[in-house]
């Protein structure tokens, strides 16, 4: 493979990789490609209350927490401790927060707050293994009543699904006296779902109770809802219980699966957990960032988003530099604009970003112009070069001070931002320009100075494009593609736009070409 083919191969691989990684990140992790997309985020607060036992000062509260599952993304979690020691454990896919304290008295309040995004179609991967021989917990008397209910429901249904639905209906409406009897009996130990679970067990159908919340905005002090998950034809199906709801479970957040209690308090009485739910609209990007940082423990190490905010804002600027470099390569290789100093325009553009173009440009021109005047005086007194450049640095600092103070007095606060101009760069610009002026004349100063400014302004517009800024910060891997484009431009051996102008006179005489001799020979003949 020739070196040119290699470069193209690498360049296209980089471009594909960069764009591919960006799309992957966008689709898999939810980073939106365009700024301004929004997403619904739920904030759920669980309030655990109990009264600490006066006789037993040690108190411990265990709250089962929802697990990461498909369909929901836990973005953030916060706990209050209120003097309690807090630990979180995860065992057999069950996460628990454990608050404990040696000396608790009176009413206790503990908070757990989580933010999550929910995109429906919730599928829990944490459903238990089905038990082929489920056991019902009825005593002898109950057994008869239960059997009667099940048999009746069985007769009135066609398959397991309709059996479950029929049972729910019977239990809810309490049509049969047996139901009242069973429920009365069960009141202290369980609830309607528990009863149906036991009833289904009589028919050898395994089911489990799922606790969770219906995500609806503005609910406060809500008790967890219980629904039933029934194992039908090899999969767990959820069945809605509440009479005042439709049967869809689109917005049901599964909090806990199985019979274990949601809240377990040792050393307290009247324990209770209640939930409040708020829905917010947030930028999708923020959601994705959150997700990246909190949910994916492994990846977050390598993202810029894991850096402290201060460093992030520096990185925001640094990530723009490759864009500026690409613009410079483009303008020099394809257009052929002459600049003084290869990447000085990028640095000037960075300064413009801090000051904005409308402030930066006049200030830049003023400083360079005044600097050139002073430099022309300096050339009359004998100074070593380094000392002269240093003198210009001092003068530039002075000019910046004057501009800052003047603009402040005039009430233009933007003038203060001129301090972002890289002084050494300015000083060198002035020095170089003045040398070009002396050696090659003002025309070249104008050509190179204008070229540098044009490139700097182009860089400025590219680097301040909100779309590009957003993209490179959220998808830094896009710079692989930038690199690829730079490699391709580096291989470009065609004409620059400026050369089409430069060689225009030559191509006009194309018909004379390949016969350059006539002119020379005829003239020689005359001699």
């Amino acid at each position, binding site marked *: 493979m020739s070196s040119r083919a290699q470069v193209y191969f690498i360049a296209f691989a980089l471009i594909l990789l960069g764009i591919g990684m960006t799309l992957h990140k966008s689709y898999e992790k939810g980073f939106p490609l365009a700024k301004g997309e929004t997403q619904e985020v739920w904030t759920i607060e669980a309030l655990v209350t109990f009264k600490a036992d006066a006789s037993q000062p040690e108190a411990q509260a265990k709250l089962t927490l929802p697990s990461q599952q498909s369909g929901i993304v836990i973005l953030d979690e916060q706990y209050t401790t209120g003097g309690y020691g807090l630990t979180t454990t995860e065992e057999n896919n069950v996460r628990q927060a454990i608050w404990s304290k040696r000396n608790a008295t009176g009413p206790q309040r503990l908070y757990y707050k989580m933010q999550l995004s929910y995109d429906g179609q919730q599928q829990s991967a944490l459903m238990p293994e089905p038990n082929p021989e489920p056991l019902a917990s009825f005593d002898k008397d109950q057994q008869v009543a239960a059997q009667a209910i099940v048999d009746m429901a069985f007769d009135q249904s066609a398959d397991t699904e309709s059996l479950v639905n029929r049972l729910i209906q019977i239990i809810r409406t309490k049509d049969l006296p047996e139901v009242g009897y069973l429920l009365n009996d069960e009141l202290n130990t369980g609830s309607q779902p528990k009863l149906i679970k036991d009833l289904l067990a009589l028919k050898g159908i395994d089911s489990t109770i799922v606790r969770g919340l219906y995500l609806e905005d503005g609910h406060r002090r809500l008790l967890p809802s219980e629904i039933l998950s029934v194992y039908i034809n090899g999969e767990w199906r959820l069945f809605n219980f509440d009479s005042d709801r439709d049967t869809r479970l689109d917005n049901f957040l599964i909090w806990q699966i199985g019979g274990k209690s949601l809240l377990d308090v040792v050393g307290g009485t009247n324990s209770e957990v209640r939930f409040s739910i708020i829905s917010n609209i947030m930028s999708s990007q923020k959601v994705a960032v959150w997700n990246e940082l909190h949910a994916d423990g492994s990846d977050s190490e390598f993202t810029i988003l894991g850096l402290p905010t201060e460093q992030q804002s520096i990185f925001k600027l640094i990530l723009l530099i490759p864009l500026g470099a690409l613009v410079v390569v483009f303008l020099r*290789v394809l257009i*052929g604009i002459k600049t003084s100093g290869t990447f000085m325009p990028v640095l000037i553009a960075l300064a413009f970003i801090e000051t904005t173009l409308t402030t930066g440009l006049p200030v830049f021109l003023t400083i360079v112009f005044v600097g050139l005047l002073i430099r022309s005086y300096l050339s009359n007194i*004998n100074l*070593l*070069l*380094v000392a002269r450049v240093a003198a210009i640095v001092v003068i530039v600092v002075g000019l910046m001070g004057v501009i800052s103070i003047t603009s402040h007095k005039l009430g233009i606060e933007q003038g203060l931002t001129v301090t972002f101009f890289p002084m050494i760069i300015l000083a060198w610009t002035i020095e170089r320009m003045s*040398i070009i002026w002396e*050696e*090659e*004349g003002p025309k*070249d100063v104008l050509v190179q100075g204008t070229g540098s400014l044009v490139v700097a302004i182009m860089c400025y517009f590219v680097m301040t494009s909100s779309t590009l800024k957003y993209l490179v910060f959220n998808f830094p891997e896009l710079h692989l593609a930038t690199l690829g484009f730079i490699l391709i431009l*580096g*291989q*470009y*051996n*065609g*004409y*620059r*736009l400026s*050369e*089409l*102008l*430069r*060689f*225009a*006179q*030559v*191509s*006009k*005489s*194309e018909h*004379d*070409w390949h016969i*350059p*001799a006539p*002119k*020379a020979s005829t*003239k*020689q003949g*005359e*001699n």
Partner: protein
Amino acid sequence: MLANPFALRRMGILGMNQRNVDYIARYNDRRFYPLVDDKLKTKTAALKAGISVPHLIGVISHQFEIKSALGKFLKLEKFVIKPAQGSGGKGILVIVGREGDHFLKPSGDSISLMDIQRHISNTLSGLYSLGGRNDVAMVEDLVNFDPRFNDYSYQGVPDIRVIIFKGFPIMAMMRCSTKDSDGKANLHQGAVGVGLNISTGKSLFAVQNGYLVDVHPDTEKPFDELDIPQWDVILKLSAACYEMTHLGYLGADIVLDKDLGPLILEVNARPGLAIQIANQIGLAHRLQTVERLEHTELSVDERVQWSINQWKD
């Protein structure tokens, strides 16, 4: 207004990008650059290779040496000070005579010893060198250029640029300074480029600012009378730079001294493309002809002869 890029391609006009990618990057090994980027090194290598160069009077490498060097200048009538690492003719100070305490530049301006001191000081600080590196100042004999060229130049020394590719002379031109160019031999500043027939050394076209001219704008001397003497010596001298520098693509700058004959002034690893305008022909076809050559293990004389035969008309 704009040229058609396809027409330019057909005519073999070499663009800056193609020059950089296909010739300089491919045929010029970077490790040989320091030799040509430093004129002092070039001179040493040229002397070793038996290539004629202007006589070196002295070298000033440190600021503290300037004072003692200044005394020596008082004994000299004519000399040239140039930065060893300068590029594009930047920082070259030519002194053509004396007027009491003052030194005369070709333009007739007189400068003081102090001005010379400052110029050397700037040179040593790296003002004229690439990237501002510290530099040394070389003091050379002024070339007494051949009086036959008197009318082809305004206040400056006309020099001859020969493009050498893989040791073969490819194209040549003479650069004549004008009033417009302020006595400088820089084409983009208004100097006249005279395309030279590579096999005969006779003029083909003369171009100023991209337009064809017949006579020197200041002296009215017609360019078609131009016939460079010792053309074969010039070709051999420049072709020998291939062995001296190991650069595949180079430009040799040559002056004709009245007494010493052709001298190499400097070698350029990135020669410009204006030579194509002066010759009204593209470099690409000629470069490709040489690239297609199978036997390139030839002596300097054989290569020069091949080029003379190849581009006779």
